[in-house]
Every structure is written in structure tokens, then in C-alpha cells.
């Protein structure tokens, strides 16, 4: 039981840490676009790299959000009918619907890995005028999906604990932790 709790906390902490850092990429996008506008307008010398670098940062930023959001219940759902049930029924429903979650994410993991492996295999670059390597960003797809799957397993374990009243997970304690970092709730 302890191992399960440790696993759950570990995954959540990992996703939290990654999310924190990745969230700062927005500064990069902002600065590079501004730089491009400035260089083009003020000096009539646009670069070949700013827009593409921004695009690559954005790609990593967007896809890597998956696990972090999952940890923070940030993936939006429709609570129309769902909100009428109690905690335990909801946990049971979540266990059932998680089948679809795993079908999607595992398919994505498989083919995302396949795609990334091919890309890394020939150190794929973009073949644009700047021609940067794009394999690191492609590799973000399976990495992000793996993080999402792990967090999905944590969520499933939570739901099982709630549904079956198991002791390895205490939803009350979790709530406090969840709301502790200020301003982080959506």
C-alpha cells in the first residue's frame, strides 16, 4: 500500500515540476516574436529563425501540458449529469470511462513513439531556411503522453481507492495539498 502511495505522489510531483518549468516557455515565445517584429520593422532585417523557434517552443509547451493539467484536474469536462452524483458514484463512472482515456493515450503513446523514433533515427531537421533539428520537439509527443498516462494511472488508483474505500489514498488530504499553492487553481 505504501508503495502505491509513494508512486502516486512521485508521479504527481514529477508532473508538477515539469509543468512549472515548461510554463515559462511563454516568455520565450513573447520575446522571440517581439524580436522578429523589431528587427523587421526597425532594421528591415527579419530573421530566418525567430518564428520557427517560437513555433517549436509552442509545440513543446502545448503538448507537455497534458500530464500537468491531469494532475491539476485541468482537462475540462462537462459536469451536467456528472455533478448530480455523489463522490463514490463518480469514482465508479470515472473508472469506467478511463477505458476510453487509456485507449486514446496508449494509441498515441505507441504511434507517437514510433514517429519520434523515426525522427530521432535520422536526426530530423525542418529543412526550412534555418533548418533546425525538430526531433526534440517530436520526441516531446511520446514523453508528454507517457507523463499523461502515468498521471492517468494515478487518477485511476485514486478512483479505485474512493470506490472501494481503500486506505492508500485519502481524498481529504489531497484536497488541502491541491489548493495550497496560491493562485494555482484555474
Amino acid at each position, binding site marked *: 500500500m505504501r508503495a502505491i502511495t509513494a508512486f502516486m505522489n512521485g508521479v504527481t510531483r514529477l508532473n508538477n515540476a515539469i509543468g512549472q518549468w515548461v510554463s515559462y516557455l511563454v516568455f520565450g515565445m513573447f520575446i522571440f516574436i517581439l524580436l522578429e517584429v523589431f528587427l*523587421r520593422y526597425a532594421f528591415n532585417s527579419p530573421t*530566418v529563425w525567430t518564428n520557427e523557434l517560437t513555433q517549436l517552443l509552442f509545440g513543446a509547451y502545448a503538448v507537455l501540458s497534458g500530464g500537468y493539467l491531469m494532475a491539476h484536474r485541468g482537462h475540462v469536462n462537462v459536469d451536467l449529469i456528472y455533478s448530480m452524483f455523489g463522490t463514490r458514484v463518480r469514482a465508479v463512472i470515472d473508472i469506467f470511462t478511463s477505458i476510453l482515456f487509456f485507449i486514446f493515450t496508449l494509441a498515441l503513446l505507441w504511434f507517437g513513439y514510433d514517429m519520434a523514433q523515426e525522427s530521432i533515427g535520422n536526426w530530423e531537421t525542418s*529543412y526550412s531556411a534555418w533548418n533546425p533539428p525538430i526531433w526534440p520537439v517530436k520526441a516531446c509527443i511520446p514523453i508528454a503522453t507517457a507523463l499523461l498516462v502515468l498521471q492517468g494511472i494515478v487518477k485511476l488508483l485514486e478512483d479505485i481507492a474512493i470506490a472501494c474505500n481503500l486506505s492508500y489514498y485519502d481524498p481529504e488530504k489531497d484536497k488541502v495539498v491541491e489548493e495550497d499553492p496560491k493562485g494555482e487553481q484555474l
Partner: protein
Amino acid sequence: PAAAQETITWKVQSHWPGASSSYKDSLGRLKDQIEERSDGRLKLQLFEAGSLFKAQETFNAVSRGILEMGTISPSYASDKMSLAGIASGLPFAFRNVWEAAYFHQVLGFEEMLREEAAQHGVYYSTDKVYPTEMVVKEPIESWEDFTSLKIRSSGALQKFLTEAGAAASYIPGGELYTALDSGIVDGAHWGAAQGAYSMALYEIAKYHVQPALNIAGTDAIIVSQKALDKLPADLQKLVKDVLQEQFWYRTNEYQYKERVTLAKAIEEEGVKINTLPDDVQDRLVQVAQEMWDEEGKRSDNAAEALQMLKDYLGKLGYL
């Protein structure tokens, strides 16, 4: 036999949007030809650009056999085909469309492309060769005019224009019109006359620049070898024959439509032809030739193709 009579349907992903003339003229023609000549045994189900796969992903999808057929620009296969750079056009190499056609079909460049693609399970066939030409808001009358330009470009031409001293930046197609209109850029290339016309660029940029930045087989049709092998022998031959005819038919037709479209733009939109002054052309050719050599370094294949090209251009008296 019964097996030979079954209907086979291929999924075909286009890299042209539905409104693009090539969607109907190239892909529509291909569909009609194949379906008619095979008595409906082989059917093509066409998908517009982006419906199933984005343009840059189509080669992968065909290579994996998920799609049976697709259209691409060779640059989308740059990571798989070392000849892609030469196929999508070295700047200021050919001066006439027929020269590029001869290079592909008679001198053997098409065969070289086909061999490279075959290594990825893809049968490659150039749809047509045609020019890429710029439109600008103010005419280019001197080298200074050229180097002060801000041009919307992409791929190898972006690099070329930058190295030549203009300010070339990439702007996605969706923002091209507004960028040109508001003066973020002063010029752009989107195919040649037909492309510019379809993007309504002549509304805001009245000068059509000639000669072409390049002339090349910028559109290609790719077929999954796996899908091809599954066809009965007569259908395999039929597909290849239709593709071969397609090249000559479309190259010629495209030329005709370019001329007609340009005439229409001149008539309706008051577009003028801006022929680059000789000294500007000379300097551009100089920059271009340095870039060719870089393309040649990509692989043995590329070096061989480049040498072949140079010999050919020499024979034509251009080098």
C-alpha cells in the same frame, strides 16, 4: 476471374486546397483517367489539403501504407529524399519550362527521384514542372530596389532571397494577404500567376516579376508501393501509364493557364510585368550558383544530379 473484378478504392490526400486549380486539374484528371480506363475497378477517394493528414505528413502516411496515394511538394519529403532540394527547384537554373521537363523525363532525373522514394516504399511521379514567380507592390528597377524588399517566402527560396540581400521572412498562407496588404511585406511568391491570382494577391500587389525564381517539379504524386503491388498487373501498368501521361499533359496545360491567368490579371487588375534589370539578374544568378553547390553536398545522389544539371545547362549555353 472474380477477384480481378472487385472494386478497389484508394484514399488520396491532396496538398492542394479544393479551390486551387490544381486540385481539379491535376487530381480530378487523375481520378477520371484512372476510373475510366480501369472501368471503375480502381476508384480514387479524394481528400482536400489537411483533411486527413497535413501536407508535410503525407509522405510518411503513404510510406507507411496508411494512405494509398497523395500529392506533395518534394520539399515535404526533404528528410527522406536527398534529391528533394533539387527537385523543388534550384533558383535561376532553368530558363524555360521545357528544359526542366527534358531534365526530368529524358535525362533521367525523374528516375533518380523514383529510386530514392522507392527506398521508403513510395512510387514517385512528378505531376508537372512549372515556374515560381514573385509579385511585388513596387517595381524592382535596381539592385537597391531588390535588397530593400521585404518578401514573404518559404523553404529554399527564403534562404536564397535572404542570401541575395532581400529581407525574406516566412508568413503562413493564411496571413499572407493581410501581411502584403498592410505592408509587413512588399512582395511574395505563391506559385506563379495562378497561385497569386487564387490568393487574390493581385488586388494589392500589381507587379508580376519575371524571370521565374525557379522552374521545377514542385508538385508530385506519390503512391504507396504496397498498395501498388496489391493491384493486378494490368492495373499497376495502368496507374503508371496514367501518371506518366499526366506529367506531359499537366506541364503543358499549366503553362497555358499561367499565360491566360496573367493576361486576365493584366486586363482586370491592371497588373504589370516587371522584368528584372540585367544587372539584378546577373547578381541573383551568382548567389544562386553558390547555393546549388550546397545542395550537391547532401549526398552522392545529389552530387550526381547536380553535375548532370550543370553539364546540361552548359550544353544549353547558360553556364
